[in-house]
C-alpha cells in the first residue's frame, strides 16, 4: 500500500498491457472460453460478494479486466461498494459522503494493526458547501485488503487486488461470469470475507463450451440488512 504521491512505477502496467495486447493479436480470441462459477454458502444459498479468481496456465487477455482505479464511498455507515475488485497497483480513492467524520483503517488480513501493513486516515464529514474528506491509496499487494473505521466499529469493507485479469465478484445470484479465459488447464480460487481459512483452488479445464463450477463455502456469511 502506498499513497499516490509515491507512484513511480506507473509505466509498468502500461508496458505489460501493451505486451498483452500483442499476445492477443497473436493468439486471437478464438481459443478462449467462458467459465460460470456459482458460489453457495454452507446452507446452499447463493452468496453474493465472493471473489472468484481464475488462474490460467495459458496466455490470453481478458476483455474486461479489473480496473486500475476505483472509488469507495462511505455512505450511511457503509463502505459502498462493500466489496470491490481492482487490479494490483490500482489507485483507490476513498471519499466520505456522510455528514460526520470517518476514520478509515486499512489493513492486510493477518497483519498486526500497528504494523506497517496497516494505515489509517481521517476523512471529515460532508458539510453544507463543502464535500467530505478524500484520500487515495495505491494497492500494490495482491489479495484482500480490509477496510474498517476507528470511530464506527461495525463498518467493514474489502478491496480485492487481483493479480489475475480473470477476477470477478459474484452478483446477487451468487454467480461470477468469467469471459475470454484461455482454453486449457486453469484453477478457480474463491475468496469471501467470512472465510477464516482460504479454500483450496479447484482445477478446471476451460474448453470451447461454457464451463460451469459450483463452489460451496463452509460458512454462512451474515446477510446485510440493506
Amino acid at each position: 500500500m502506498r499513497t499516490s504521491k509515491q507512484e513511480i512505477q506507473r509505466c509498468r502496467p502500461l508496458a505489460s498491457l501493451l505486451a498483452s495486447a500483442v499476445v492477443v493479436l497473436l493468439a486471437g480470441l478464438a481459443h478462449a472460453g467462458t467459465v460460470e462459477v456459482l458460489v453457495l454458502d454452507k446452507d446452499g444459498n447463493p452468496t453474493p460478494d465472493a471473489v472468484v479468481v481464475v488462474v490460467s496456465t495459458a496466455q490470453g487477455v481478458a476483455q474486461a479486466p479489473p480496473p486500475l482505479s476505483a472509488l469507495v464511498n462511505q455512505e450511511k455507515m457503509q463502505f459502498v461498494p462493500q466489496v470491490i475488485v481492482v487490479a494490483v497497483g490500482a489507485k483507490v480513492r476513498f471519499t466520505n459522503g456522510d455528514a460526520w467524520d470517518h476514520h478509515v483503517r486499512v489493513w492486510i488480513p493477518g497483519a498486526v494493526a500497528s504494523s506497517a501493513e496497516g494505515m489509517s486516515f481521517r476523512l471529515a464529514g460532508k458539510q453544507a458547501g463543502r464535500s467530505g474528506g478524500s484520500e487515495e491509496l495505491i494497492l500494490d499487494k495482491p489479495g484482500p485488503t480490509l477496510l474498517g473505521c476507528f470511530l464506527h466499529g461495525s463498518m467493514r469493507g474489502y478491496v480485492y487486488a487481483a493479480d489475475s485479469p480473470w477476477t470477478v465478484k459474484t452478483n446477487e445470484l451468487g454467480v461470477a461470469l468469467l469471459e475470454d479465459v484461455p482454453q486449457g488447464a486453469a484453477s478457480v480460487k474463491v475468496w469471501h470475507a467470512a472465510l477464516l481459512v482460504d479454500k483450496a483452488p479447484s482445477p478446471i479445464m476451460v474448453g470451447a463450451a461454457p464451463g460451469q463450477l459450483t463452489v460451496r463455502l463452509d460458512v454462512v456469511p451474515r446477510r446485510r440488512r440493506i
Partner: protein
Amino acid sequence: MKKILISLALASLAVACLPAMAQTSHQPAVSTNALFLALGQTPGLTALADDFVIRLKQDARLGPHFKNVNQKNLSKQLTDQFCALSGGPCVYEGADMKSAHMDMDITKGDFNALVEVLQAAMDAKGIAFTTQNQLLALLAPMHRAVITVR
C-alpha cells in the same frame, strides 16, 4: 414496549412542570435548559456517558453489540446528543439514528435492555427519577430508527 413508552411519556409530561416551578426563584419562568442543568451540565453528562458505555460493554445482553464500539467516540457522541436534547449548548454532529443502526440486528428487547442500562447508569450518578424520565422521554421516540428487527 408501547406501554412503557406511553407511561414514560406521561411520566415526563407530569414532571415536566416541576423543575420549572422549582427554579422560578432564580430562573426565568420558562427554562429551556432545566433538564441540562438537572443532569449536571456537560461534566455531569460526560461522566454519565462514559459510565454508560462501560456498562453497555459489560452487559451480558448488549456486550456483543458494543464489543467493537469505539468507547471514546460513542461516549463523546452520547454526551453531545444528550446535551443538545436536554437544552444544553452543544451541537450533535454524529450520525442520524437511522444510518447509525440500519445495518445492525437490533430487536425491541435490545432497545429495552439499553434503556435499563441507561437507568442503572443514571441511578449510579444519583440523578433524580423525574430527571431520568425526562431524558428517557426525549430518547424514546428513537426506537423507530434504532430497532431494525421487527
